[in-house]
């Protein structure tokens, strides 16, 4: 498993990279979603705090139930991607720090998208300020998800 205490890894995960979430329901149905901020809470234990979309009750319920989760972080500018696998732990109460985190993440993410694609910022701002629900997940494995022949290769401390 990748070293979550590594500063470069932390910087990447705390940046404006695109955050994709997949959970799985009891019937095996995967569900794709987005997160609006990620914080490494406990690097040693692999605990991440994710800001899920509040208007996606299925994903929130899957996390609350402790179901399996995949989290992919993709750099908007060069598609470098890491995918974590783990499971849901808890759904937390929203704090002012979470809202600040969401606002900062949204600004960073949309700015990166703007810089590389030049979409009108006023249109992209439609995505900013979404209601979020914080949750904790624990991850125990990481994979290179960058498009190309190495996609899916496990990342360990040695090859991160």
């Amino acid at each position, binding site marked *: 498993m990748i070293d979550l205490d590594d500063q470069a890894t932390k910087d990447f995960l705390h940046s404006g990279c695109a955050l994709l979430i*997949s959970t799985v329901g009891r019937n095996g149905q995967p569900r794709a979603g987005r997160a609006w901020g990620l914080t490494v809470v406990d690097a040693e234990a692999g605990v991440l705090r994710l800001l899920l979309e509040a*208007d996606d009750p299925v994903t929130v319920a899957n996390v609350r139930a402790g179901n399996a*989760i995949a989290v992919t972080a993709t750099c908007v500018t060069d598609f470098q991607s890491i*995918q974590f696998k783990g499971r849901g732990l808890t759904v937390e109460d929203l704090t002012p720090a979470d809202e600040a985190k969401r606002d900062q993440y949204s600004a960073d993410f949309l700015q990166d998208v703007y810089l590389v694609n030049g979409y009108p910022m006023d249109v992209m701002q439609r995505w900013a300020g979404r209601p979020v629900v914080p949750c904790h997940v624990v991850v125990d494995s990481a994979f290179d998800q960058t498009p190309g022949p190495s996609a899916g290769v496990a990342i360990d401390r040695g090859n991160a």
Partner: protein
Amino acid sequence: MNADDLGLRDLRRCFDGRIPAVVATASASGVPNITHLSLVHEVDNERLALSNQFMSKTSRNVAENPQASLLLVDPVSFSEYRLILRYERTDRRGPVFERLRDDVDKVAALSGMRDVFRLRSADIFRVESIEIVRDFDVPPARASRLQNAGLTACADLAARMSRCGDLGAMVTVALEGLDELLAYRHSSMMLLDEQGQRLFTIASHGFPVEGVGSEIEVGDGVAGAAALTGRPVRVGALHQMQRYSDAVRRAFEREGAVGPGQDIPLPTLDHPESRLAAPAMVKGELIGVLVVESPLVVAFDDEDEAVLTMVATLIAQMAQLERAEQDAADPPAVPQAVEAVADEAAEVHVRFFPEDGSIFLDGNYLIRGVAGRVLWSLVQRHVATGQREFANKELRLDKSLDLPGFRDNLDTRLVLLKRRLEEREAPIRIERTGRGRFRIDIAGTLRLEAHD
């Protein structure tokens, strides 16, 4: 918009590649996987095809568990949709596969990865439901180019082109007319080389750098793909596709499957978003490729393909006509010595490298290949005999040019050389003096130097 009323046809803009789709799958044991997708195609109003180049985990998952979840974003309104999919089959041939393969080839061509980046299969999914994640208004659509300019503009351009006496003039008139009459602000014309393996830029319009003489391999980039397939090729989200293509290329470079790429100084905008290349063909044979660019995303559509194909065809016909005229031209007159050029004081230093035919004028790179060898032959003759008037036919007899015996493209090489000399404001110029004849003007005294 009501989700119950939505069909895939209502989501068409989501499939143009500007914003990557996201697919989530899960293994039989319930381990999820989520990844970006470069290409999603609408098969019909109920089915989608996902390209499979590297999605080994996704493919393995749907073989075990056919359920999938897809996120799509409308690149105009930023509305987002979540689709529940069920895997049906995998196509490795047939029309859906072919369509996806064309698009994968476009991405591969952007970074010179045609040999390694290939579509393996097209995974076909049935759409079980469409959920609107967020719904926003769509700005009004812009009017098409032909609605603005009208068919009369096309006819006017064709008429202007038909009045041109040679290929060089016609290409200039075509590119300027595309801008003036039809608002294609940025365009270039590339011609196929004698071996049919490379395209070289003969003229450009509206770019920061003219790029005359720049080359690409057939198959590389949007223009190369149009040359390879003989069909128009357009990309409407060039920046996004280029970034994806670059990411894949870097991954292949790390694996050692491909070497570092070359920088090709083609005429291009600083931040192009859309590029359309139309093949110039006559008698079923490729002559070259006409290319237009725009800084706007998805700037070109089917109508633009039609307009550019028409203009490219006219240029191809002129190239063919010139070639036929050259073949029928009178034998060359015996070279006659002429008076030395006017400005004896200035020295023009011409360095030639036979290995690749490259020519440097006063220390500055000019051109290479056949065009370089042609110029070297001309200046050698001028220095030896004072000759300034030449016939194309006598050049064809010059074995040092290494021209193929059939369809040598010499005429277009001369047009290229003439334009390159003008672009570089060189002290040597070429002027056409009649059918199959031309003159070189030299502002100075030549000093020739060949490097073995």
